[in-house]
């Protein structure tokens, strides 16, 4: 069956450091992958989309990589700030259908 795996353990880092979150998937061949941010009690907020033919995508302090051979995406936040503390979700479309979300990784940036 199709699976999206994100580290369920919270990631704690110091302000100013780079946070790296991982999304692994199995039994998918997605044409693209998306990353969202979710704050407690709020809906997910779209951050970035990366297509299968793109190795890397950047937006301000965010960088996403997509390795279709490893079936993995890495999500980086450089120069992290306490305001970046949230849960980050990766999402994939199974065979062109509606997005399926991973369970997310909670990031805590300590001042």
């Amino acid at each position, binding site marked *: 069956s199709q699976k999206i795996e994100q580290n369920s353990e919270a990631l704690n880092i110091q302000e100013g450091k780079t946070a790296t979150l991982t999304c692994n998937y199995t039994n998918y061949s997605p044409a693209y992958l998306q990353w969202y941010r979710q704050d407690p*009690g709020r809906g997910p*907020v779209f951050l970035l989309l990366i297509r299968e033919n793109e190795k890397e995508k950047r937006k301000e302090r965010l960088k996403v990589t997509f390795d279709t051979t490893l079936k993995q995406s890495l999500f980086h936040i450089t120069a992290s700030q306490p305001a970046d503390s949230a849960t980050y979700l990766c999402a994939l479309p199974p065979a062109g259908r509606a997005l*399926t*979300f991973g369970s*997310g990784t909670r990031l805590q940036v300590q001042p």
Partner: protein
Amino acid sequence: EPEVTQTPSHQVTQMGQEVILRCVPISNHLYFYWYRQILGQKVEFLVSFYNNEISEKSEIFDDQFSVERPDGSNFTLKIRSTKLEDSAMYFCASSDWGQEYGYTFGSGTRLTVV
């Protein structure tokens, strides 16, 4: 910036009652979705809607659930005969050209079935 608006923000209902959750998607978006998130769990897909009909639904979206676009702006999720396990946060989302461009989610309706 355009928003997806959901009402009510919180609804408490008795088991067995019917509830209607309402959403106003972004006006020029064509695709509409309902997701739910049980406390502490992941965001789960329920149904997608395009061109005034359901385009896809998950196993969760059984006969208890229905969706409607009663007018040009509202998009509703009806849950008939609610069960305790329906307690969750329900999110509406919309997108313009489909999922490739990211979904815009509303702030959700917290449904509590007692």
